[in-house]
Protein backbone atom coordinates (compact mmCIF):
# COMPACT_ATOMS: atom_id res chain seq x y z
CA UNK A 1 0.00 0.00 0.00
CA UNK A 2 1.79 3.12 -1.17
CA UNK A 3 0.31 6.43 -2.27
CA UNK A 4 2.17 9.36 -3.80
CA UNK A 5 1.49 13.08 -3.69
CA UNK A 6 1.36 15.19 -6.85
CA UNK A 7 4.79 15.94 -8.29
CA UNK A 8 6.47 19.20 -7.42
CA UNK A 9 5.04 19.47 -3.89
CA UNK A 10 6.96 18.98 -0.68
CA UNK A 11 6.01 15.58 0.68
CA UNK A 12 6.47 13.41 3.73
CA UNK A 13 6.11 9.67 4.21
CA UNK A 14 3.79 8.36 6.89
CA UNK A 15 3.93 4.78 8.12
CA UNK A 16 0.68 3.15 9.31
CA UNK A 17 0.55 0.05 11.49
CA UNK A 18 -2.66 -1.96 11.14
CA UNK A 19 -4.75 -4.09 13.45
CA UNK A 20 -8.06 -5.79 12.69
CA UNK A 21 -10.47 -7.28 15.23
CA UNK A 22 -13.50 -9.31 14.23
CA UNK A 23 -14.05 -12.60 12.45
CA UNK A 24 -12.54 -14.15 9.36
CA UNK A 25 -14.84 -14.37 6.38
CA UNK A 26 -15.02 -16.21 3.09
CA UNK A 27 -16.86 -16.29 -0.21
CA UNK A 28 -18.13 -13.53 -2.43
CA UNK A 29 -20.42 -12.14 0.26
CA UNK A 30 -17.72 -12.29 2.93
CA UNK A 31 -19.89 -14.35 5.23
CA UNK A 32 -18.46 -15.79 8.43
CA UNK A 33 -18.00 -19.59 8.36
CA UNK A 34 -19.63 -21.38 11.31
CA UNK A 35 -16.26 -22.36 12.80
CA UNK A 36 -14.88 -18.82 12.92
CA UNK A 37 -14.87 -16.87 16.17
CA UNK A 38 -13.78 -13.46 17.33
CA UNK A 39 -10.15 -12.53 17.42
CA UNK A 40 -7.46 -10.20 16.17
CA UNK A 41 -7.31 -11.24 12.55
CA UNK A 42 -4.52 -8.99 11.30
CA UNK A 43 -1.65 -7.34 13.11
CA UNK A 44 1.10 -5.62 11.17
CA UNK A 45 4.62 -6.65 12.01
CA UNK A 46 5.64 -3.74 14.24
CA UNK A 47 2.72 -4.17 16.60
CA UNK A 48 2.90 -6.67 19.46
CA UNK A 49 0.22 -8.90 20.92
CA UNK A 50 0.22 -6.61 23.97
CA UNK A 51 -1.12 -3.90 21.64
CA UNK A 52 -4.33 -5.92 21.12
CA UNK A 53 -5.74 -4.62 24.39
CA UNK A 54 -4.46 -1.07 23.93
CA UNK A 55 -5.97 -0.83 20.47
CA UNK A 56 -9.27 -2.56 21.21
CA UNK A 57 -12.26 -0.53 19.97
CA UNK A 58 -13.99 -0.01 23.36
CA UNK A 59 -10.76 1.25 24.88
CA UNK A 60 -10.13 3.66 22.04
CA UNK A 61 -13.72 4.87 22.22
CA UNK A 62 -13.56 5.08 26.03
CA UNK A 63 -16.52 2.72 26.31
CA UNK A 64 -17.15 -0.26 28.55
CA UNK A 65 -18.58 -2.03 25.53
CA UNK A 66 -19.12 -1.15 21.89
CA UNK A 67 -22.81 -1.71 21.08
CA UNK A 68 -24.85 -1.48 17.86
CA UNK A 69 -27.07 1.31 19.16
CA UNK A 70 -24.01 3.53 19.60
CA UNK A 71 -23.55 3.64 15.84
CA UNK A 72 -25.52 6.39 14.13
CA UNK A 73 -28.10 4.86 11.74
CA UNK A 74 -26.52 6.80 8.88
CA UNK A 75 -23.15 5.19 9.58
CA UNK A 76 -24.25 1.60 10.12
CA UNK A 77 -23.10 0.18 6.82
CA UNK A 78 -19.59 1.60 6.82
CA UNK A 79 -19.19 2.02 10.55
CA UNK A 80 -18.23 4.81 12.89
CA UNK A 81 -14.89 6.57 12.71
CA UNK A 82 -12.54 7.91 15.34
CA UNK A 83 -9.21 9.73 15.20
CA UNK A 84 -7.29 10.67 18.32
CA UNK A 85 -4.03 10.29 20.18
CA UNK A 86 -4.04 6.79 21.63
CA UNK A 87 -5.35 6.90 25.22
CA UNK A 88 -2.47 5.14 26.97
CA UNK A 89 -0.39 7.49 29.16
CA UNK A 90 2.32 9.44 27.33
CA UNK A 91 1.34 7.74 24.12
CA UNK A 92 3.45 8.50 21.09
CA UNK A 93 0.93 7.20 18.65
CA UNK A 94 -2.33 8.37 17.20
CA UNK A 95 -5.01 6.00 16.05
CA UNK A 96 -7.70 5.94 13.39
CA UNK A 97 -10.52 3.51 14.00
CA UNK A 98 -13.38 2.29 11.84
CA UNK A 99 -15.78 -0.03 13.66
CA UNK A 100 -19.15 -1.45 12.81
CA UNK A 101 -21.53 -4.34 13.26
CA UNK A 102 -22.10 -6.51 10.23
CA UNK A 103 -24.27 -9.60 9.73
CA UNK A 104 -22.43 -12.91 9.96
CA UNK A 105 -24.03 -13.96 6.67
CA UNK A 106 -22.56 -11.04 4.74
CA UNK A 107 -23.21 -7.33 4.38
CA UNK A 108 -26.61 -7.83 2.77
CA UNK A 109 -27.52 -10.71 5.07
CA UNK A 110 -30.02 -10.88 7.89
CA UNK A 111 -28.09 -12.99 10.37
CA UNK A 112 -26.66 -12.28 13.77
CA UNK A 113 -24.47 -9.19 13.98
CA UNK A 114 -20.85 -9.19 15.05
CA UNK A 115 -18.27 -6.51 15.62
CA UNK A 116 -15.69 -5.79 12.94
CA UNK A 117 -13.06 -3.10 13.29
CA UNK A 118 -9.87 -1.81 11.72
CA UNK A 119 -7.28 0.39 13.38
CA UNK A 120 -4.45 2.39 11.90
CA UNK A 121 -1.73 3.53 14.25
CA UNK A 122 0.62 6.35 13.26
CA UNK A 123 3.23 8.39 15.09
CA UNK A 124 1.50 11.08 17.15
CA UNK A 125 3.95 13.56 15.63
CA UNK A 126 2.70 12.70 12.13
CA UNK A 127 -0.90 13.21 13.25
CA UNK A 128 0.12 16.58 14.66
CA UNK A 129 1.90 17.59 11.44
CA UNK A 130 -0.56 16.26 8.86
CA UNK A 131 -4.09 16.13 10.34
CA UNK A 132 -5.78 17.23 7.13
CA UNK A 133 -4.05 14.65 4.95
CA UNK A 134 -4.42 11.82 7.46
CA UNK A 135 -8.10 12.49 8.11
CA UNK A 136 -8.81 12.60 4.38
CA UNK A 137 -6.88 9.41 3.82
CA UNK A 138 -8.31 7.49 6.76
CA UNK A 139 -11.80 8.72 5.98
CA UNK A 140 -11.65 7.37 2.47
CA UNK A 141 -9.53 4.25 2.87
CA UNK A 142 -9.95 2.86 6.36
CA UNK A 143 -12.63 0.17 6.13
CA UNK A 144 -13.80 -2.36 8.69
CA UNK A 145 -13.68 -5.31 6.33
CA UNK A 146 -13.15 -8.88 7.52
CA UNK A 147 -9.93 -10.63 6.61
CA UNK A 148 -10.16 -13.77 4.53
CA UNK A 149 -10.16 -17.18 6.16
CA UNK A 150 -8.20 -18.40 3.15
CA UNK A 151 -5.31 -16.06 3.88
CA UNK A 152 -2.55 -17.70 5.92
CA UNK A 153 -2.18 -16.56 9.49
CA UNK A 154 1.55 -15.99 9.04
CA UNK A 155 0.75 -13.50 6.27
CA UNK A 156 -1.89 -11.68 8.29
CA UNK A 157 0.34 -11.37 11.32
CA UNK A 158 3.45 -10.22 9.53
CA UNK A 159 1.87 -7.66 7.24
CA UNK A 160 4.11 -4.74 6.43
CA UNK A 161 2.96 -1.34 7.65
CA UNK A 162 1.21 0.72 5.00
CA UNK A 163 3.22 3.67 3.77
CA UNK A 164 1.64 6.81 2.44
CA UNK A 165 3.22 9.89 0.97
CA UNK A 166 1.37 13.02 2.01
CA UNK A 167 1.70 16.55 0.73
CA UNK A 168 3.06 19.00 3.27
CA UNK A 169 0.66 21.91 3.29
CA UNK A 170 1.91 25.46 3.15
CA UNK A 171 0.52 27.39 6.18
CA UNK A 172 -0.38 30.22 3.82
CA UNK A 173 -2.52 27.86 1.77
CA UNK A 174 -4.19 26.56 4.93
CA UNK A 175 -4.99 30.07 6.08
CA UNK A 176 -6.25 30.99 2.63
CA UNK A 177 -8.59 28.00 2.55
CA UNK A 178 -9.79 28.70 6.06
CA UNK A 179 -10.39 32.36 5.27
CA UNK A 180 -12.55 31.25 2.39
CA UNK A 181 -14.41 28.86 4.68
CA UNK A 182 -14.97 31.61 7.24
CA UNK A 183 -16.63 33.68 4.53
CA UNK A 184 -18.61 30.99 2.79
CA UNK A 185 -19.47 28.27 5.30
CA UNK A 186 -21.11 28.13 8.69
CA UNK A 187 -18.78 25.50 10.21
CA UNK A 188 -15.46 27.33 10.20
CA UNK A 189 -16.17 29.98 12.84
CA UNK A 190 -17.84 27.63 15.38
CA UNK A 191 -15.07 25.08 14.97
CA UNK A 192 -12.27 27.60 15.53
CA UNK A 193 -14.19 29.14 18.43
CA UNK A 194 -14.70 25.70 19.93
CA UNK A 195 -10.99 24.92 19.76
CA UNK A 196 -10.03 28.35 21.12
CA UNK A 197 -12.51 28.11 24.00
CA UNK A 198 -11.32 24.58 24.75
CA UNK A 199 -7.75 25.81 25.08
CA UNK A 200 -8.88 28.63 27.33
CA UNK A 201 -11.16 26.77 29.73
CA UNK A 202 -9.62 23.30 29.78
CA UNK A 203 -13.14 21.83 30.02
CA UNK A 204 -14.34 18.73 28.22
CA UNK A 205 -16.63 19.66 25.37
CA UNK A 206 -18.21 18.22 22.25
CA UNK A 207 -19.13 20.08 19.08
CA UNK A 208 -21.61 18.05 17.08
CA UNK A 209 -22.44 18.58 13.43
CA UNK A 210 -25.22 16.91 11.55
CA UNK A 211 -26.57 16.32 8.08
CA UNK A 212 -27.53 19.98 7.73
CA UNK A 213 -23.91 20.99 8.18
CA UNK A 214 -22.10 18.42 6.06
CA UNK A 215 -23.39 16.26 3.27
CA UNK A 216 -21.01 13.44 4.07
CA UNK A 217 -18.40 12.19 6.48
CA UNK A 218 -15.72 13.04 3.92
CA UNK A 219 -16.83 16.69 3.86
CA UNK A 220 -16.77 16.82 7.66
CA UNK A 221 -13.30 15.30 7.84
CA UNK A 222 -12.05 17.71 5.18
CA UNK A 223 -13.34 20.65 7.19
CA UNK A 224 -12.05 19.45 10.55
CA UNK A 225 -8.73 18.53 8.98
CA UNK A 226 -8.34 22.06 7.74
CA UNK A 227 -9.18 23.52 11.15
CA UNK A 228 -6.73 21.21 12.93
CA UNK A 229 -4.04 21.92 10.36
CA UNK A 230 -4.45 25.60 11.22
CA UNK A 231 -3.79 25.07 14.94
CA UNK A 232 -0.40 26.41 16.09
CA UNK A 233 2.25 23.97 17.28
CA UNK A 234 1.83 25.40 20.77
CA UNK A 235 -1.89 24.48 20.98
CA UNK A 236 -2.08 23.07 24.53
CA UNK A 237 -4.78 20.41 24.19
CA UNK A 238 -3.79 18.72 20.98
CA UNK A 239 -3.56 15.30 22.66
CA UNK A 240 -7.12 15.65 23.91
CA UNK A 241 -8.69 16.26 20.52
CA UNK A 242 -10.79 13.51 19.03
CA UNK A 243 -12.50 13.55 15.68
CA UNK A 244 -15.54 11.31 15.60
CA UNK A 245 -18.04 10.37 12.94
CA UNK A 246 -21.12 8.21 13.34
CA UNK A 247 -20.59 7.39 17.02
CA UNK A 248 -23.31 8.37 19.47
CA UNK A 249 -20.93 8.67 22.37
CA UNK A 250 -19.06 11.75 23.42
CA UNK A 251 -15.35 11.32 24.02
CA UNK A 252 -13.63 13.09 26.86
CA UNK A 253 -11.47 16.07 26.01
CA UNK A 254 -12.33 18.10 22.94
CA UNK A 255 -14.54 16.12 20.65
CA UNK A 256 -15.46 17.21 17.13
CA UNK A 257 -18.25 14.96 16.01
CA UNK A 258 -20.42 14.29 12.97
CA UNK A 259 -23.67 12.37 13.14
CA UNK A 260 -24.98 11.79 9.62
CA UNK A 261 -28.58 11.27 10.67
CA UNK A 262 -28.70 14.27 12.99
CA UNK A 263 -30.92 17.08 11.76
CA UNK A 264 -31.03 20.59 13.20
CA UNK A 265 -34.29 19.99 15.07
CA UNK A 266 -32.79 17.08 16.99
CA UNK A 267 -29.41 18.61 17.67
CA UNK A 268 -30.18 20.31 20.94
CA UNK A 269 -31.04 17.08 22.68
CA UNK A 270 -28.10 15.10 21.27
CA UNK A 271 -25.54 17.79 21.94
CA UNK A 272 -26.81 18.42 25.43
Amino acid at each position, binding site marked *: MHRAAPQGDQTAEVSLERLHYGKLASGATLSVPAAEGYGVTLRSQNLRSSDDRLL*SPPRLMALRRFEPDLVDPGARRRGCFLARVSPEPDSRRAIFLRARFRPEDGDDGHGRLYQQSAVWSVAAADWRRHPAALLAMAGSELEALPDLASEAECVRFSAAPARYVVRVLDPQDVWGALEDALDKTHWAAPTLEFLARGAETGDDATLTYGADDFASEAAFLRAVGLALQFLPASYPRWREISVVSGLRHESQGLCLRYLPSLRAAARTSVAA
Partner: protein
Amino acid sequence: MTERLSICLIGPKKGGKSSLLASLVDCVAQSAFGYSPRLRPGLQPVTEAEFYAEGVEPKKADLLSVEQGDYERLRRDFAEGGVATDTLDTYEYRFRLTVNGEAPPAVVLRGPWLLEIIDSAGEIAVPPDGAEVAILNDVKAKLAKQMLDAESVIIVLPLVRLEDSGWSGNLARLIDRLALAPEKKLKRLVVVFSQYERLFARLGPSAFTYACDPAVALHVLRKSLRTVQWLDRLRAMETPDGGGVAVRFTVCSAYGFVKRFQNPNIDPHQPGERRFRRAGLEGARAYNEYWRPFLTAEPFLYAALGHDSAFTFSYAQLDARLEESA
Protein backbone atom coordinates in the same frame (compact mmCIF):
# COMPACT_ATOMS: atom_id res chain seq x y z
CA MET B 1 -31.96 -11.15 54.51
CA THR B 2 -30.61 -10.72 51.01
CA GLU B 3 -28.42 -13.38 49.46
CA ARG B 4 -25.97 -12.38 46.74
CA LEU B 5 -25.18 -15.01 44.15
CA SER B 6 -22.91 -15.11 41.19
CA ILE B 7 -23.90 -17.24 38.19
CA CYS B 8 -21.51 -17.85 35.28
CA LEU B 9 -22.92 -18.64 31.85
CA ILE B 10 -20.51 -20.63 29.72
CA GLY B 11 -20.69 -22.71 26.57
CA PRO B 12 -19.53 -22.74 22.97
CA LYS B 13 -20.17 -19.80 20.68
CA LYS B 14 -23.60 -19.67 19.05
CA GLY B 15 -24.88 -21.91 21.82
CA GLY B 16 -27.50 -19.38 22.89
CA LYS B 17 -26.06 -17.99 26.14
CA SER B 18 -26.99 -14.36 25.47
CA SER B 19 -30.39 -15.34 24.06
CA LEU B 20 -31.10 -17.40 27.15
CA LEU B 21 -30.26 -14.43 29.33
CA ALA B 22 -32.12 -11.95 27.12
CA SER B 23 -35.33 -13.96 27.40
CA LEU B 24 -35.02 -14.61 31.15
CA VAL B 25 -37.11 -11.71 32.45
CA ASP B 26 -39.87 -12.33 29.89
CA CYS B 27 -39.90 -16.02 30.75
CA VAL B 28 -40.39 -15.23 34.43
CA ALA B 29 -42.99 -12.56 33.68
CA GLN B 30 -44.95 -14.97 31.47
CA SER B 31 -44.51 -17.87 33.93
CA ALA B 32 -43.20 -19.85 30.98
CA PHE B 33 -41.26 -22.20 33.24
CA GLY B 34 -41.73 -25.67 34.67
CA TYR B 35 -42.14 -24.53 38.26
CA SER B 36 -45.50 -24.44 39.94
CA PRO B 37 -47.38 -21.21 39.13
CA ARG B 38 -47.78 -20.87 42.90
CA LEU B 39 -44.03 -20.18 43.23
CA ARG B 40 -44.67 -16.69 41.78
CA PRO B 41 -41.05 -15.61 41.27
CA GLY B 42 -40.31 -11.98 40.45
CA LEU B 43 -37.21 -10.83 38.63
CA GLN B 44 -36.09 -7.27 38.08
CA PRO B 45 -32.87 -5.96 36.50
CA VAL B 46 -30.94 -3.73 38.89
CA THR B 47 -27.95 -1.48 38.44
CA GLU B 48 -24.48 -2.23 39.76
CA ALA B 49 -24.98 0.40 42.48
CA GLU B 50 -28.26 -1.19 43.55
CA PHE B 51 -26.65 -4.61 43.53
CA TYR B 52 -23.93 -3.57 45.95
CA ALA B 53 -26.10 -1.33 48.12
CA GLU B 54 -27.23 -2.78 51.42
CA GLY B 55 -30.87 -3.74 51.92
CA VAL B 56 -31.93 -3.23 48.34
CA GLU B 57 -35.64 -2.70 47.87
CA PRO B 58 -37.32 -2.30 44.50
CA LYS B 59 -37.92 1.33 43.69
CA LYS B 60 -41.58 2.19 43.39
CA ALA B 61 -40.89 4.21 40.26
CA ASP B 62 -39.41 1.10 38.64
CA LEU B 63 -42.80 -0.57 38.77
CA LEU B 64 -44.02 1.91 36.22
CA SER B 65 -40.98 2.14 34.00
CA VAL B 66 -39.32 -0.21 31.55
CA GLU B 67 -35.90 -1.57 32.44
CA GLN B 68 -33.01 0.58 31.34
CA GLY B 69 -29.35 -0.06 30.85
CA ASP B 70 -27.35 -3.04 29.74
CA TYR B 71 -30.06 -5.64 30.14
CA GLU B 72 -32.58 -3.59 28.18
CA ARG B 73 -29.96 -3.32 25.47
CA LEU B 74 -29.42 -7.08 25.48
CA ARG B 75 -33.16 -7.62 25.09
CA ARG B 76 -33.30 -5.13 22.24
CA ASP B 77 -30.38 -6.79 20.46
CA PHE B 78 -32.10 -10.16 20.87
CA ALA B 79 -35.30 -8.74 19.37
CA GLU B 80 -33.33 -7.53 16.38
CA GLY B 81 -31.68 -10.87 15.69
CA GLY B 82 -28.87 -10.91 18.25
CA VAL B 83 -25.30 -9.69 18.47
CA ALA B 84 -22.35 -12.04 18.93
CA THR B 85 -20.77 -11.29 22.32
CA ASP B 86 -17.24 -10.03 21.77
CA THR B 87 -14.12 -11.45 23.41
CA LEU B 88 -12.86 -8.11 24.72
CA ASP B 89 -14.42 -8.49 28.17
CA THR B 90 -16.93 -10.47 30.18
CA TYR B 91 -20.27 -8.80 30.86
CA GLU B 92 -22.20 -8.75 34.11
CA TYR B 93 -25.98 -8.35 34.39
CA ARG B 94 -27.61 -7.93 37.76
CA PHE B 95 -31.08 -8.81 38.99
CA ARG B 96 -33.20 -8.89 42.09
CA LEU B 97 -35.07 -12.16 42.48
CA THR B 98 -37.97 -12.67 44.85
CA VAL B 99 -40.20 -15.64 45.51
CA ASN B 100 -43.64 -14.33 46.27
CA GLY B 101 -45.58 -17.55 46.54
CA GLU B 102 -45.31 -21.06 47.85
CA ALA B 103 -41.94 -22.72 48.15
CA PRO B 104 -40.21 -24.86 50.76
CA PRO B 105 -39.11 -22.81 53.77
CA ALA B 106 -35.50 -23.69 53.05
CA VAL B 107 -35.87 -21.75 49.81
CA VAL B 108 -38.09 -18.88 50.87
CA LEU B 109 -36.18 -17.97 54.00
CA ARG B 110 -32.99 -17.32 52.03
CA GLY B 111 -34.48 -14.65 49.80
CA PRO B 112 -34.64 -12.16 48.30
CA TRP B 113 -31.66 -12.79 46.07
CA LEU B 114 -29.36 -10.46 44.22
CA LEU B 115 -28.06 -12.27 41.18
CA GLU B 116 -25.00 -11.35 39.19
CA ILE B 117 -25.09 -13.24 35.91
CA ILE B 118 -21.88 -13.24 33.90
CA ASP B 119 -22.09 -13.60 30.14
CA SER B 120 -19.06 -14.04 27.92
CA ALA B 121 -18.16 -15.01 24.37
CA GLY B 122 -18.07 -18.74 23.80
CA GLU B 123 -14.60 -18.48 22.30
CA ILE B 124 -13.14 -17.63 25.70
CA ALA B 125 -14.14 -20.66 27.78
CA VAL B 126 -15.01 -23.20 25.10
CA PRO B 127 -13.11 -22.44 21.90
CA PRO B 128 -13.42 -24.75 18.92
CA ASP B 129 -11.27 -27.89 19.31
CA GLY B 130 -7.85 -27.49 17.74
CA ALA B 131 -8.30 -23.79 17.02
CA GLU B 132 -5.74 -21.25 18.16
CA VAL B 133 -8.00 -18.47 19.43
CA ALA B 134 -6.14 -15.34 20.49
CA ILE B 135 -8.00 -14.11 23.56
CA LEU B 136 -6.69 -11.26 25.68
CA ASN B 137 -4.99 -12.71 28.73
CA ASP B 138 -6.72 -10.36 31.16
CA VAL B 139 -10.13 -11.41 29.84
CA LYS B 140 -9.27 -15.10 30.19
CA ALA B 141 -8.02 -14.51 33.73
CA LYS B 142 -11.12 -12.48 34.60
CA LEU B 143 -13.49 -15.20 33.41
CA ALA B 144 -11.49 -17.92 35.16
CA LYS B 145 -11.73 -15.99 38.43
CA GLN B 146 -15.44 -15.35 37.91
CA MET B 147 -16.00 -19.08 37.37
CA LEU B 148 -14.10 -19.99 40.51
CA ASP B 149 -15.96 -17.35 42.53
CA ALA B 150 -19.39 -18.28 41.17
CA GLU B 151 -21.85 -20.17 43.33
CA SER B 152 -23.48 -21.53 40.17
CA VAL B 153 -22.38 -22.30 36.64
CA ILE B 154 -24.78 -22.76 33.76
CA ILE B 155 -23.37 -24.61 30.75
CA VAL B 156 -25.41 -23.74 27.66
CA LEU B 157 -25.15 -26.23 24.80
CA PRO B 158 -26.99 -26.18 21.50
CA LEU B 159 -29.05 -29.29 20.90
CA VAL B 160 -26.71 -30.85 18.34
CA ARG B 161 -24.86 -34.15 18.11
CA LEU B 162 -22.25 -33.41 20.74
CA GLU B 163 -19.72 -35.87 19.36
CA ASP B 164 -19.68 -33.92 16.06
CA SER B 165 -19.83 -30.48 17.61
CA GLY B 166 -16.21 -29.45 17.18
CA TRP B 167 -15.89 -28.15 20.75
CA SER B 168 -16.67 -31.15 22.96
CA GLY B 169 -12.97 -31.79 23.68
CA ASN B 170 -12.42 -28.30 25.02
CA LEU B 171 -15.66 -28.47 27.01
CA ALA B 172 -14.46 -31.71 28.60
CA ARG B 173 -11.12 -30.09 29.49
CA LEU B 174 -12.89 -27.09 31.00
CA ILE B 175 -15.09 -29.33 33.15
CA ASP B 176 -12.00 -31.29 34.23
CA ARG B 177 -10.23 -28.11 35.30
CA LEU B 178 -13.29 -26.86 37.14
CA ALA B 179 -13.76 -30.20 38.89
CA LEU B 180 -10.16 -30.27 40.02
CA ALA B 181 -10.03 -26.66 41.25
CA PRO B 182 -10.04 -26.85 45.05
CA GLU B 183 -10.73 -23.15 45.45
CA LYS B 184 -14.04 -23.18 43.57
CA LYS B 185 -17.15 -21.99 45.40
CA LEU B 186 -19.50 -23.87 43.15
CA LYS B 187 -22.69 -25.19 44.70
CA ARG B 188 -24.87 -25.83 41.68
CA LEU B 189 -24.17 -26.60 38.04
CA VAL B 190 -26.88 -26.71 35.37
CA VAL B 191 -26.37 -28.10 31.88
CA VAL B 192 -29.04 -26.65 29.61
CA PHE B 193 -29.67 -27.66 26.03
CA SER B 194 -30.89 -24.68 24.04
CA GLN B 195 -32.87 -24.43 20.80
CA TYR B 196 -35.25 -27.13 22.07
CA GLU B 197 -38.04 -25.87 19.80
CA ARG B 198 -36.21 -27.13 16.73
CA LEU B 199 -36.91 -30.73 17.64
CA PHE B 200 -40.59 -30.06 17.16
CA ALA B 201 -40.45 -28.11 13.91
CA ARG B 202 -42.50 -30.69 12.03
CA LEU B 203 -45.20 -31.06 14.65
CA GLY B 204 -46.95 -27.79 13.84
CA PRO B 205 -49.64 -26.92 16.38
CA SER B 206 -48.88 -30.07 18.42
CA ALA B 207 -45.32 -28.92 19.05
CA PHE B 208 -45.97 -27.12 22.31
CA THR B 209 -47.98 -30.01 23.75
CA TYR B 210 -45.11 -32.44 23.22
CA ALA B 211 -42.51 -29.94 24.40
CA CYS B 212 -44.43 -29.47 27.63
CA ASP B 213 -44.14 -33.13 28.54
CA PRO B 214 -41.24 -33.59 30.99
CA ALA B 215 -40.92 -37.21 29.88
CA VAL B 216 -40.10 -36.00 26.36
CA ALA B 217 -37.43 -33.65 27.73
CA LEU B 218 -35.96 -36.44 29.85
CA HIS B 219 -35.83 -38.72 26.80
CA VAL B 220 -34.11 -36.00 24.75
CA LEU B 221 -31.55 -35.39 27.48
CA ARG B 222 -30.76 -39.09 27.85
CA LYS B 223 -30.28 -39.38 24.12
CA SER B 224 -28.14 -36.25 23.85
CA LEU B 225 -25.93 -37.18 26.78
CA ARG B 226 -25.40 -40.80 25.76
CA THR B 227 -22.01 -40.28 24.18
CA VAL B 228 -20.54 -37.30 26.03
CA GLN B 229 -17.10 -37.70 27.55
CA TRP B 230 -17.57 -35.37 30.49
CA LEU B 231 -20.67 -36.90 32.06
CA ASP B 232 -18.76 -38.96 34.61
CA ARG B 233 -16.55 -36.02 35.55
CA LEU B 234 -19.65 -33.95 36.31
CA ARG B 235 -21.08 -36.84 38.28
CA ALA B 236 -17.92 -36.98 40.37
CA MET B 237 -18.44 -33.33 41.30
CA GLU B 238 -21.59 -34.38 43.14
CA THR B 239 -19.64 -36.49 45.62
CA PRO B 240 -18.35 -34.88 48.82
CA ASP B 241 -14.80 -35.31 47.55
CA GLY B 242 -15.74 -33.61 44.29
CA GLY B 243 -17.16 -30.57 46.06
CA GLY B 244 -20.72 -31.71 46.66
CA VAL B 245 -21.99 -29.76 43.68
CA ALA B 246 -25.65 -30.28 42.74
CA VAL B 247 -25.79 -31.03 39.01
CA ARG B 248 -28.95 -30.70 36.96
CA PHE B 249 -29.85 -31.05 33.28
CA THR B 250 -32.61 -29.22 31.46
CA VAL B 251 -33.77 -27.93 28.09
CA CYS B 252 -34.94 -24.52 26.93
CA SER B 253 -35.84 -22.40 23.96
CA ALA B 254 -35.36 -18.64 23.79
CA TYR B 255 -37.48 -18.36 20.65
CA GLY B 256 -40.03 -20.64 22.27
CA PHE B 257 -43.43 -21.37 20.85
CA VAL B 258 -46.10 -19.16 19.32
CA LYS B 259 -48.86 -18.15 21.69
CA ARG B 260 -52.27 -19.54 20.63
CA PHE B 261 -50.85 -21.35 17.57
CA GLN B 262 -48.41 -23.50 19.62
CA ASN B 263 -45.88 -24.08 16.84
CA PRO B 264 -42.12 -23.39 17.18
CA ASN B 265 -41.55 -19.66 16.97
CA ILE B 266 -39.39 -19.41 13.87
CA ASP B 267 -41.05 -17.54 11.04
CA PRO B 268 -40.20 -19.29 7.75
CA HIS B 269 -41.27 -16.25 5.77
CA GLN B 270 -38.64 -13.96 7.27
CA PRO B 271 -35.04 -13.83 6.11
CA GLY B 272 -32.58 -15.40 8.53
CA GLU B 273 -33.89 -16.81 11.79
CA ARG B 274 -36.59 -14.55 13.14
CA ARG B 275 -39.51 -14.99 15.45
CA PHE B 276 -43.07 -14.32 14.31
CA ARG B 277 -43.94 -10.67 14.70
CA ARG B 278 -46.82 -8.26 14.31
CA ALA B 279 -46.35 -6.24 11.14
CA GLY B 280 -46.25 -2.48 11.59
CA LEU B 281 -44.72 -2.52 15.06
CA GLU B 282 -41.07 -1.99 15.95
CA GLY B 283 -38.73 -3.51 18.51
CA ALA B 284 -39.76 -5.90 21.27
CA ARG B 285 -43.43 -4.84 21.03
CA ALA B 286 -43.66 -6.44 17.59
CA TYR B 287 -42.92 -9.87 19.07
CA ASN B 288 -44.88 -9.76 22.29
CA GLU B 289 -48.19 -10.83 20.81
CA TYR B 290 -46.78 -14.22 19.72
CA TRP B 291 -43.65 -14.85 21.73
CA ARG B 292 -43.61 -17.25 24.63
CA PRO B 293 -40.08 -18.31 25.61
CA PHE B 294 -39.79 -21.86 26.87
CA LEU B 295 -38.10 -22.73 30.17
CA THR B 296 -35.33 -20.12 29.83
CA ALA B 297 -35.84 -19.23 33.49
CA GLU B 298 -35.29 -22.84 34.56
CA PRO B 299 -31.49 -22.91 34.75
CA PHE B 300 -31.32 -19.52 36.50
CA LEU B 301 -34.00 -20.30 39.05
CA TYR B 302 -32.40 -23.62 39.88
CA ALA B 303 -28.97 -21.98 40.00
CA ALA B 304 -30.28 -19.39 42.45
CA LEU B 305 -32.79 -21.32 44.51
CA GLY B 306 -31.55 -24.91 44.33
CA HIS B 307 -35.20 -25.81 43.91
CA ASP B 308 -36.20 -28.36 41.26
CA SER B 309 -38.89 -27.91 38.65
CA ALA B 310 -40.61 -30.51 36.51
CA PHE B 311 -37.89 -29.91 33.91
CA THR B 312 -34.69 -30.02 35.97
CA PHE B 313 -33.32 -33.53 36.00
CA SER B 314 -30.75 -35.03 38.31
CA TYR B 315 -28.39 -37.90 37.60
CA ALA B 316 -30.76 -40.14 39.56
CA GLN B 317 -33.55 -39.30 37.12
CA LEU B 318 -31.32 -39.72 34.09
CA ASP B 319 -30.14 -43.07 35.41
CA ALA B 320 -33.60 -44.35 36.38
CA ARG B 321 -34.53 -45.96 33.10
CA LEU B 322 -31.14 -47.55 32.74
CA GLU B 323 -31.69 -49.18 36.11
CA GLU B 324 -35.21 -50.19 35.10
CA SER B 325 -34.01 -51.80 31.90
CA ALA B 326 -31.12 -53.47 33.75
